[in-house]
């Protein structure tokens, strides 16, 4: 057992209102530069829908992620030699139009226009060529349009084969905020010919080293989530950094910090590095999720803690793993699921599937429906979060429903429901964390991943942060 620490995120989709605040604050901090205009390290998609870039989930086309052949794990984009031959032209490489051509508006014409009969108009202008352009697609083009032109092209809908799912009376919609998953088995790292992308040992954050990046771009098709981007100006790969400069100081990522719906939870997971490969190459896609849960270890188990100390994990990190809200949600209550586990990258951003309104055909008198009587088909959620295993989704949603029922019965002084999985107290804790948890409860990060406490960091205030060879810096 070799224990490593991983900063993991949980998003409670039940509470996502699709406001795009996470995308905008992220963009303002990280990607408002030339060459990066089209990038959204974090974006929010309306599902069903084809997403950003277009049809990113269609791995028959993009060949992202991993596959198991003869018990061995290999990149779906081909062997090393096959991929090197694609250096001169890569058929699965997305181009700018797969995302959208970024634009701005000629705002100055509004001010500088001469007096005319008609109002002046700010016309769109391409941020790449600086020429006038017609806007044909954008990063959230069919936002809130679950019956939009492209929604039917959603791979997950095709997979569940429910043509009627988009009939008017059965329409459903949900939001899916996405950033880099900082996977335990990242395909982008494995695909990089230059060795520029790496997983940080201290916190599991996947980063690109721009000095080493030579712009081969193999990370981009290899990432099944299309969360590595190519900067056309600097010719380097760029991706979500999990706001590592903030993490190192015990602060959450910008998307977590600014989330209006407070849907994001951030904390430490301890996992067994030696078990990662076996989890990634489990035979059946449906077994990936349960095996991945086994890779994540109980942080209050003394054996795990000792193993963590042996591999050099600081006390501050172990302590924060013990009180990690994400461990509770992911492993203890098993309420959160990885996005598309069948890609076999073992993502570390987890999603609590959303409850949805009751279906019309179910009786009106029911206060809370069963998990299979809700508007979003279980099979659709299963296609997203459990490699099409509807039982996992049903179980997860039922736990959320049970929690609501328990709290309602308590509120109206009625007897608690029967056949509950957990103790009543557990449901109350669940309710506190999912429903009313404050900032400090949702985000538990060690103060400085170097293991420095807030006090120690405070002592560093006003210093240069490093020792000068000749002295005199402090």
């Amino acid at each position, binding site marked *: 057992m070799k224990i490593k620490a991983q900063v993991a995120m949980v998003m409670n989709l039940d509470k996502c209102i699709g406001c795009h605040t996470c995308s905008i604050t992220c963009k303002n901090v990280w990607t408002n530069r030339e060459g990066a205009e089209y990038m959204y390290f974090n974006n929010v998609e309306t599902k069903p829908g084809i997403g950003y870039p277009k049809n990113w989930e269609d791995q028959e086309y993009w060949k992202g992620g991993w596959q198991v052949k003869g018990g061995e794990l290999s990149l779906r984009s081909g062997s*090393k030699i096959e991929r090197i031959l694609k250096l001169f032209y890569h058929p699965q490489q997305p181009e700018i139009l797969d995302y959208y051509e970024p634009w701005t508006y000629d705002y100055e014409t509004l001010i500088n226009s001469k007096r005319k009969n008609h109002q002046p108009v700010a016309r769109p202008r391409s941020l790449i060529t600086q020429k006038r352009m017609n806007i044909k697609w954008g990063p959230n083009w069919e936002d809130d349009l679950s019956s939009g032109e492209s929604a039917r092209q959603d791979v997950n809908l095709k997979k569940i084969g429910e043509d009627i799912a988009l009939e008017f009376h059965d329409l459903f919609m949900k939001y899916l905020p996405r950033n880099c998953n900082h996977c335990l088995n990242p395909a982008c790292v494995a695909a990089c010919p230059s060795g520029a992308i790496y997983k940080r*040992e201290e916190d599991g954050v996947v980063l690109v080293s721009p000095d080493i990046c030579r712009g081969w771009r193999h990370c981009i098709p290899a990432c099944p989530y299309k969360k590595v981007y190519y900067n056309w100006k600097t010719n380097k790969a760029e991706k979500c950094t999990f706001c590592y400069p903030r993490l190192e100081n015990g602060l959450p990522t910008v998307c977590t910090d600014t989330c209006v719906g407070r849907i994001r939870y951030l904390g430490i997971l301890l996992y067994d590095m030696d078990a990662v490969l076996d989890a990634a190459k489990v035979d059946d896609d449906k077994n990936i999720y349960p095996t991945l849960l086994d890779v994540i270890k109980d942080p209050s188990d003394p054996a795990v803690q000792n193993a963590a100390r042996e591999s050099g994990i600081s006390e501050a990190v172990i302590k924060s793993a013990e009180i990690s809200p994400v461990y509770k949600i992911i492993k203890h209550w098993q309420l959160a699921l990885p996005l598309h586990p069948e890609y076999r990258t073992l993502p570390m951003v987890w999603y609590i599937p959303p409850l949805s309104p009751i279906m019309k055909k179910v009786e009106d008198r029911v206060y809370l429906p069963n998990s299979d009587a809700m508007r979003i088909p279980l099979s659709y959620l299963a296609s997203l979060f459990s490699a099409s295993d509807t039982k996992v989704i049903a179980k997860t949603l039922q736990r959320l429903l049970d929690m609501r029922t328990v709290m309602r019965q308590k509120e109206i002084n009625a007897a608690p429901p029967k056949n509950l999985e957990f103790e009543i107290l557990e449901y109350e804790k669940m309710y506190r964390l999912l429903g009313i948890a404050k900032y400090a409860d949702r985000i538990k990060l060690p103060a400085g991943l170097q293991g420095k406490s807030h006090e120690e960091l405070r002592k560093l205030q006003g210093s240069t942060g490093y020792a000068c060879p000749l002295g005199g810096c402090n």
Partner: protein
Amino acid sequence: MNEIFFGALPYVAITVLIVGTAYRYSKDTSTWSTKSSQFLAKSSLKIAGPMFHLGLAMAFGGHVIGILIPKFLTDSAGIDEHLYHIIALAGGIPAGILFFLGFFLLMQRRFGKARMKVNTSTMDGWLYVILFATIATGCFATLLNATGILGDFNYRETISPWFRSLLMFQPDTSLMENVPLIFKCHLLCALTLITIFPFTRLVHCLSFPFEYFGRSHIIYRRK
């Protein structure tokens, strides 16, 4: 004049190549890239990119064989002048066509697509001019030589031994005296290309990721 062009200039070019490359690599590798443009214009690269690089690889291989292998070696292997020429042309003509056509298609793309223009630097422009001159003079020289217009000129008895004399640091510029002008032009273009190499996008060919083949899938690094 011959002494300067074919005795001194090659050493200057090679020195600039080595020192310039080492300097650029040690100083700042953030621009060490071919500035891939597939992202900005994908479909037009599909044929042009591989075609150009295949032609380039074939042409490079042909130059290595033609210049580095002495004539007496092929003679003793029983390959006479006629057979050698047939083999050389069988490889050289397709290489030239692929190289030239690939280059033409790439240039059409480079200067024809609006999005491509934004990523083309002044240095790129100079590089394309010199690259074009090198390919054009090379193809033209081969054409003239193959059709017999240049008489009984044989580069394997003049240019090749001269090049090998350069490698042994005893440049014999007298070998270059009777070389036709078109070959001399080709050589000067190539020397210019070698000189500017470290300062252009061409450096990407030195970054072929050999170490990737022996590497494990996932890389972990400490802060």
